[in-house]
């Protein structure tokens, strides 16, 4: 393991921001820190960058105690949601900044700096825009410059703090693909903070889910997606339908029907959860009685909004060609989960 974060605690005036956070990252790994605002993910990033110090705990990188190093010796590249480009410098000057401020002994020659800047401009596909000022660039371009600037110091760790948070959906998607490629090419250990689960699952090798300053779950995108460890993770990763039921011998029993339970659960009464795409709708038979309130397109799927007799809201997704196409607003149907998750 190259980056080791062990029992890190950080308390702001009477407010614990991080509680016993522990995880490790392999060299070259892409880790996403996923959590709602206030979960401590940005605080953790600031600790890694050396902009703050933890109250307790260890942070080390390749055997070196990072807490003893000041920010500039950590060689950590950071990209901010606000871009934080130097507004009075051109794109090229921004990228060269980290090299130009090195002490004379360690500073590369002018020619070397120039070629580094050119190489990075090519990498971010902005070869011709080196002389522009940040205010003359689009949001997506600015964030690419910010990344190039961080990469110029040849960082050992790259920290990205909600880098696409201020951009619109199309640009985000584009940059996501591009960031993946850059990570592949540079192979630098990357920590990416986001509150967007789709972004986290799409980009990361492993995802660390944070809640209230604590690590809630660590796993690959597939593990996180198929085996959420808690109700919080389940709800945070996507839409969740909830229904009360009873578990006995690993089978969830509802009023007149039953469904298999994902993972193990003790017998007893539960609020059971299931995904919109793991549910079946029919006009007759067993299931929760629901009324269709909306039929909406959702990309490759058809999304139905439903309302139970007791007022509970449900959501289901079906492929366009399925029989769900025949349902319309006002229809009374039966909703039957194909698989449920149980959390105490």
């Amino acid at each position, binding site marked *: 393991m190259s980056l080791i974060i062990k029992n890190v605690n950080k308390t702001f005036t009477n407010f614990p921001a991080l509680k016993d956070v522990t995880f490790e990252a392999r060299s070259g790994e892409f880790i996403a820190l996923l959590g709602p605002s206030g979960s401590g993910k940005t605080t953790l990033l600031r600790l890694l*960058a*050396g*902009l703050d110090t933890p109250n307790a705990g260890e942070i080390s990188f390749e055997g070196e105690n990072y807490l003893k190093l000041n*920010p*500039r010796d950590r*060689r*950590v*590249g*950071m990209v*901010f949601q*606000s871009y*934080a*480009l*130097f*507004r*009075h410098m051109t794109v090229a000057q921004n990228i060269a*900044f*980290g090299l130009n*401020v*090195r002490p004379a002994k360690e500073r590369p020659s002018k020619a070397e700096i120039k070629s580094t800047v050119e190489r990075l401009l090519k990498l971010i596909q902005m070869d011709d825009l080196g002389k522009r*000022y*940040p*205010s003359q660039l689009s949001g997506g371009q600015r964030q690419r410059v*910010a990344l190039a*600037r*961080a990469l110029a*110091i040849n960082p050992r760790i790259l920290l990205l703090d909600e880098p696409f948070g201020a951009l619109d959906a199309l640009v985000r998607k584009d940059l996501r693909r591009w960031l993946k490629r850059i990570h592949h090419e540079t192979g630098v250990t990357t920590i990416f903070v986001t509150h967007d689960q789709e972004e986290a699952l799409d980009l990361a090798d492993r995802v660390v889910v944070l809640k209230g300053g604590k690590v809630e779950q660590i796993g690959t995108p597939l593990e996180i997606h198929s085996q959420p460890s808690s109700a919080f993770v389940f709800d945070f990763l996507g839409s969740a339908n909830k229904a009360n039921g009873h578990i006995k011998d690993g089978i969830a029993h509802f009023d007149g029907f039953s469904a298999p339970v994902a993972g193990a659960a003790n017998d007893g009464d539960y609020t059971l959860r299931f995904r919109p795409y793991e549910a079946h709708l029919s006009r007759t038979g067993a299931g929760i009685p629901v009324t269709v309130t909306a039929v909406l397109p959702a990309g490759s799927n058809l999304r139905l909004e439903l309302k139970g007799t007791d007022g509970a809201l449900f959501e289901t997704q079906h492929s366009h060609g399925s029989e769900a196409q025949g349902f319309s607003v006002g229809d009374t149907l039966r909703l039957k989960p194909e698989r449920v998750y149980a959390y105490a």
Partner: protein
Amino acid sequence: MTAKAARAPKTLGAYALLAFALLWLGLIILLPLINVLVTAFSQGLPPYLAALHTEDAKAAILLTLLVAAIAVPLNAIFGICAAWCITRFEFKGKSLLLSILDLPFSISPVISGLVWILLFGAQGWFGFLLRDHDIKIVFALPGLVLATVLVTLPFIARELIPLMEDQGTDEEVAARTLGARGWDIFFRVTLPNIKWALLYGVLLCTARAMGEFGAVSVVSGHIRGLTDTLPLYIEITYNQYDTIGAFAAASILAGLAIVTLVLKSLLEWRFAGELAASRRH
């Protein structure tokens, strides 16, 4: 900054309002200014030049420039420090500091002068110390500088605080993660970002420092040729019925103010693009 959509006046009311504003400006600002020049040159150029060529007049002009040359840099340094503290740190008593910073705006300049007499005058708190060591503060250059510094204290800080508040600390934090040291961050990131506001503040502060009368009057002691700044010199010559002398000196003071103004406009015109860019971003 958001650009407001302005249009040419169309209605009679709009023209009336415009005419009134112009008339008012002419009456309040232009007329007195013209009066100064007309009176100064009422007996032609030679008496005007002669009035400025006296030892006392030249001493007053030099002293005014000297006081401004010391007071303005002091306030520039203080202004940057104060703005830095206020916009970069959260601490108790921040709003109190802001209020104190504005105090020189609201208290009478006479008081700003008097406090130095009470502190450093012969009968003042520290008077005995100064007497023992033969240091002169009031009725001398240090007193003039202190009084001017106090009166013009808020000008530069007030210009910087809103801008630095607006710009935030992101760029400085970014510079730090890129390996820049404290002074590097200040000279390469902070200072370039605030240079126009700083220059504005310096120009305003200079104009005010050169024109200060009340506070300076109290600490000056009115020693002709030694502690009379230009505004004081104008008053004295006027009181001695030397109209040409007084108005000639006044024209110099007004001229200095106009030079400052023109400088400011020139900067705005020459660097309009950069100014807009540094405010927008």
